[in-house]
């Protein structure tokens, strides 16, 4: 393979070289530069991973691309052990671990490692990797940026190249905290982004492990049909706020009438939103009923909003095509990641063991345990989940029962789409509404009792409850 395709084999040798990447896969790089959030990370020990599933296969195709970060700069220092992950190199450099340890451990994990080794310099006593040419802060900055871009996309925000590093750091720290990552070392990292790649690596792994985050990213970049509505019948347990003394002193006292004002505004805005939502439903129904019978897919039977719009403005097809292509590329990258994922976790586990000396907190231990669980649970990933309605649903009009609309859930990983009947969802939501009403009435009654108690203590005052 080396002879056949030297450009590709450099992957095997683990030289993260963006410029070379551009030579072999210019199209992809363009995309990577425009959509860095979708960088194909963790090519890792691709060969070993791929080969594990196909033990003995002669020609293992190397990973197609690198997780290139958007950065300027020339070739990185050569490193045999890190096919593309400057962060990992940096982590090891920071940890001062022996170069061969991490991949060695991972490589030893599967027989397919042999395939990977084929292209590499033979022998475990490999020369130490050259120090990365760029100083560590550079990699930290890039890692911060990677997380920033990822998290911004997940939160539906936009970002520009010129966003200040301080803002990036703060946002990443906030977003991680928001999602439940509470490791204090992360919050103590300086705002100039100069250090912390090890912490960031940990946080990054945590993010990958977090259920649904990657899926959210995918969903965010999905081409919209316009027919979606969100359904949620979860019992959200709002944590009970403790009844403590009033928070603010005299300076911070707020007039209750102002709070009532704000509450009223919120309610009126909610009413406006409700009216707009009803309008949207009405118009959607019009589109669905007017185009029913026209769709090639018999299951659906009618056009979605995007399709109807395309009929009216056919010149937009190019744009739609581009969006579809980029979505496809992203999904392919995600699938690739899914295949390589176990290798990454293996490596992380190994890396963690080395860094034991640094006294990682229980978080890392938990991460390890959960990654081990994850590895064991890999085959059962496709187990059906409990039917709890949550997420986006696409509305499909069924003409046989004109009164009801059927919603089909759209999930990437499941083969058969779970179909929900609108009537069921409505029933669930009504039950939920009834229980919330009961709770509200209970709370109001409690307040009334308290007010009556207070009023009784006042002389000459008649209290008329609302």
């Amino acid at each position, binding site marked *: 393979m080396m002879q056949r395709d030297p450009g590709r084999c450099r992957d095997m040798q683990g030289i993260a070289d963006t410029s070379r990447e551009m030579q072999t896969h210019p199209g992809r790089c363009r995309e990577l530069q425009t959509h860095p959030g979708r960088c194909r990370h963790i090519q890792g020990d691709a060969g070993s991973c791929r080969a594990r599933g196909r033990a003995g296969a002669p020609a293992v195709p190397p990973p197609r691309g690198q997780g290139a970060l958007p950065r300027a700069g020339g070739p990185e220092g050569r490193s045999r052990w890190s096919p593309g992950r400057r962060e990992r190199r940096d982590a090891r450099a920071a940890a001062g671990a022996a170069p061969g340890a991490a991949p060695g451990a991972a490589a030893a994990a599967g027989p397919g490692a042999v395939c990977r080794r084929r292209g590499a310099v033979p022998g475990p006593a490999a020369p130490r990797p050259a120090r990365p040419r760029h100083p560590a802060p550079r990699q930290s900055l890039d890692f911060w940026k990677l997380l920033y871009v990822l998290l911004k996309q997940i939160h539906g925000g936009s970002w520009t190249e010129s966003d200040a590093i301080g803002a990036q750091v703060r946002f990443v720290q906030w977003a991680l905290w928001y999602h439940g990552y509470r490791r204090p070392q992360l919050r103590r990292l300086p705002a100039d982004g100069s250090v912390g790649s090890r912490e960031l690596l940990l946080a990054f792994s945590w993010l990958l492990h977090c259920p649904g985050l990657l899926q959210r990213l995918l969903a965010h970049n999905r081409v919209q049909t316009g027919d979606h509505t969100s359904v949620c019948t979860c019992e959200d347990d709002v944590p009970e706020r403790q009844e403590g003394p009033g928070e603010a002193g005299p300076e911070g006292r707020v*007039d209750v*009438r*102002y709070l*009532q*004002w*704000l*509450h*009223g*505004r919120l*309610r*009126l*805005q*909610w*009413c*406006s939103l*409700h*009216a*707009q939502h*009803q*309008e949207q439903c*009405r*118009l959607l129904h019009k589109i669905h009923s007017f185009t029913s019978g026209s769709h090639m897919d018999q299951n659906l039977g009618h056009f979605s909003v995007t399709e109807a719009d395309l009929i009216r403005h056919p010149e937009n097809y190019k744009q739609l095509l581009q969006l579809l292509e980029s979505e496809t590329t992203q999904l392919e990258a995600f699938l690739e990641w899914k295949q390589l994922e176990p290798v990454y976790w293996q490596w992380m586990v190994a890396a963690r063991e080395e860094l034991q000396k640094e006294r990682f907190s229980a978080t890392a231990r938990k991460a390890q345990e959960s990654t081990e669980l994850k590895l064991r649970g890999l085959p059962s990933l496709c187990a059906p989940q409990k039917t709890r309605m949550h997420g986006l649903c696409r509305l499909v009009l069924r003409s046989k029962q004109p009164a009801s609309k059927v919603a089909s859930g759209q999930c990437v990983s499941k083969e058969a789409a779970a179909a929900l009947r609108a009537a069921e969802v409505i029933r669930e939501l009504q039950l939920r509404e009834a229980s919330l009403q009961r709770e509200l009435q209970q709370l109001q009654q409690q307040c009334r009792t308290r007010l009556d108690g207070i009023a009784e203590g006042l002389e000459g005052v008649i209290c*008329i409850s609302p």
Partner: protein
Amino acid sequence: MSIVTVQLGQCGNQIGHELFSALCRDSRGTHGLCSNNENQSYQDSCKERFFCEEESAVPAARAVLVDMEPKVISQALSMAASSGHWRYSSHSHFCQKQGSGNNWANGYCVHGPRHKEAIMELVQREAERCDRLGGFLTIMSMAGGTGSGLGAFVTQCLRDAFPTSFILNHVIWPYGTGEVIVQNYNSVLTLSHLYHSSDALLVHENDVIHKICAQLLNIKQISFRDVNQVIAHQLGSVFQPAHLPCAVSLSDMSSCGFLLSGDLLESLVPHPEFRMLGLRNIPQMAESSLPYSTFSWPGLLRQMLIANAQMEEGIDWQVRPPQAGSCIPCTNKALHFNTSIANLLILRGKDVHSVELGSFQDPSLYTSWLNPQDAFTAWKTPRAFNKYEKSAALVSNSQFLLKPLDSIVGKAWNMFASKAYLHQYTKFGIQEEDFLDCFTTLEQVISSYTNL
């Protein structure tokens, strides 16, 4: 975004007809100096809001007409049809063959429940014709008999049937020296019931409009038609489309879209205790004088502040309260100074962008618990309204109605204390406890406004 208008009683139907005429006339009229695009979207927005485009060219008003007698409704229907530019839908009115006595309790307790289904079906039909239902506007008089009682009942039904829609009640405040002896009872009953069901009450005082007709418009023999036309003009200046101040250029404005009625309510009546809105509109000039007048914005706005004073019996907005340091009991403040909770200023016509609005954002105008940024909103559009080169309307949630309200409640209470004329109400089902509840509600309103 569409509004369904419910015209209740004789007063409501007459004013409603004038309102639609005024809106139609303005929409088709000259558009001053704004661009064609702007004018086009203004017209489209107005049409969508108040009219329903039908296959026949003439748009139909989104309105339901309700009255116990057929006379006024048929007048309104025929006048609209003969205008040639708009009409009422053929099946959106409800009336009985004969009148049913001038009695509030009769309207509320007897006719309301009896005809509820028929009326609500008309409303539902109009509501369903709207792609987006912005809310309801009801027009009625406050002190009338059957019409007011029925109107209060219908408002309640609207609230029950449409819990999340906006309801704006436009009410006509009676003449101080009215002829109907029980008008104070009726007013108290109407106001308190409306206060519970609707989001806001937009009040027009007959006395004030009469003054406008006499002093500003120089009309010698003031007829109801004149009064109604002034009211319709003022309402039109509020309900015609306008933009939020976020748009800084004309191109921004056309993409910004016209505001919804929800925004009007959001700016003015979020607080459930403060729902009374007053309306001032300038300039008011005889049509014959219009071609010879030019207006400047500072002059117009200053006139608005002063004109406000005239309508409020001498309270001058230029009077400043004492410095914040000294403590002034709230009641004293109310006597000398009209405190606002919120104000909405709508500017239409030439040069709207360059208007200096600092005088309306003075914190001393507003109550202490709300800062001017929250309390003051300005809408603008370069599109001229009803042939006025420049015009401004001020919708105000303030203490302006405190005195008239206090006076009406006081008079009604005196009558109630001596149990005068109560049998007219009790025989139809309004008991003394109901009266007491109404008095309580209004005392609460008076107290809230006094303590601003």
